[in-house]
């Protein structure tokens, strides 16, 4: 039972990760793919944030009467990763805009058809 309840945030991570990954692979719409990619990345953020939690620990600010703090390092790391994720999304979306200008569609199969020609 503790395997399931005690580690519930890791189960959420796995669930989100698979949902996102499935979307990236299965969707033909370029925007939906990017959304999937975002969910996939977010799950990793959650993984990092979960591992920084120390049982009974508070926020890592020095205060009287507190001995245990959560580990702030993974949180800081993931701030960097969030920034990277935003950059990736914006580059991806701007590519989608230009693809739409060039092809007039953002469906993968239609783009493939247009490229291979009649």
């Amino acid at each position: 039972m503790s395997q399931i309840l005690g580690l519930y945030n890791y189960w959420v991570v796995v669930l989100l990760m698979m949902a996102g990954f499935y979307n990236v692979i299965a969707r033909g719409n370029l925007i939906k793919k990017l959304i999937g990619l975002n969910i996939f990345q977010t799950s990793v953020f959650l993984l990092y944030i979960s591992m920084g939690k120390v049982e009974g620990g508070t926020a890592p600010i020095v205060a009287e009467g507190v001995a245990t703090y959560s580990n702030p390092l993974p949180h800081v790391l993931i701030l960097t990763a969030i920034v990277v994720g935003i950059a990736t999304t914006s580059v991806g979306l701007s590519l989608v805009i230009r693809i739409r200008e060039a092809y007039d569609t953002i469906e993968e199969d239609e783009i493939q058809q247009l490229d291979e020609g009649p």
Partner: protein
Amino acid sequence: MIAAHLPILQIILPLLAAPICVLIRPQKLVWPFVLIVSWATLGLAAMMLNQVLLSGPISYALGGWEAPWGIEYRVDLLNAFVIFLVALIGAVVLIYAPESVKREIDDDRRSYFYAAFLLCLTGLLGICVTGDAFNVFVFLEISSLSTYGLISLGRDRRALTAAYNYLILGTIGATFILIGIGLMYMMTGTLNMADLASRLQGVNHTRTIQVAFAFLSVGLTLKLALFPLHIWLPNAYTYAPSVVTAFVAATATKVSVYVFLRFVFTIFGADFAFGTMHIDYLLLPLAIAGIFVASAVAIYQSNLKKLLAYSSVAQIGYIMLGISFGSITGLTAGIVHLFNHALMKGALFLAVGSIFLRVNSVQLDDLSGLGKRMPVTSFALVLGGLGLIGVPLTVGFISKWYLLLAAIEAGWWPVAVLVLISSLLALVYIWRFVETAYFRPVPDDAPPVSEAPLLMQIPMWLLIALAIGLGVQTSSTIGTAQRAALWLLSGAP
């Protein structure tokens, strides 16, 4: 003063120069500025390589924060060698850039092109120089994001979809690497590579570390385009502007191979990777399959750039094959081929860029009789091609020779035979160009073309000269690679 801060100066210089590119008016001055920056970076890389050769590894505490708390930049022979390679290719390709860029990239985008180019260089150098696992991820994303932008600058609209697909797959790869690093941090509480290496010894029987190893391996093989995770590569190389193709083909995958070596050998250790996880069972068949499938596909391409792109996938197979032996000779072969392939492919893609500049096409059908129309460039392409086949007196021969030695040393005769057979496939795809260029008549309606301008010829011949010269005078590259291989296998951080 400079000598003490070499590792960080490598990164700072192109990083700070990148935004300045966009600000410089008039635009004419952007290229000279970028050229100076890239050659200065090359100078710093050469100084650092020299320092490492003379006095051993350099450890640099970023911002004065001592490792393992701060980020440590750690340079040993292997990464000093790769840094020098990347800086060299960057500097050489930039000489070539202005003429080609004028033809292939719109006026108003040129300064952005140079800025992205410098950012890509920053990222690639940063990946090599850092001794911090998380820092690798950050620099990996800096270089990847700028590469997506660079690829999308191609004139063909397929460049956009190629960049998009690379973005999706590259991000998945990078995220896998991020997961792997996170799981390692979870078990050890450190991100410093040397520190990780020593602390992993105690916990590497756990499932968490084994999963971390799996995530890192898959993520990195995606980034370095090992078959069958190479699908992003052919289109990205084919539709990117010529300069970008030459630079990215010669550096990006090679740097990923370096990261793979660093994680597998320095952090996890050969005993764990080969003894416990048996990564060779996975790498060896995939490398051989990659060599054969990609070479066979290359034979049927009608686009010269795509042909060479598939050949790149095959050549990465050779590099990974060398690594999969896990022996000193095998690793030497892998590292030497990493260097050699960068030189050859750099030169070949530069030659293809020159052809595109003059003939306005890289379809083999349009290149009939090119040997008469552009004799110098065609000859350079043939010389580079001979290197890919592995003809003696070219660098390609040296790599194949060591690969064969490693296979025989391990007692894997079938592998040695397969390597020899696969060279014949390379012969066939290079022959397709030779036949088109030299044995087909020039079409009557072909407009007369001249050779590429001198600024494009010099870098191309420089790389060709290196690819031949280092094939004749082999001691420097082989010696460095051997020492790097010994270093990796000794398990020293």
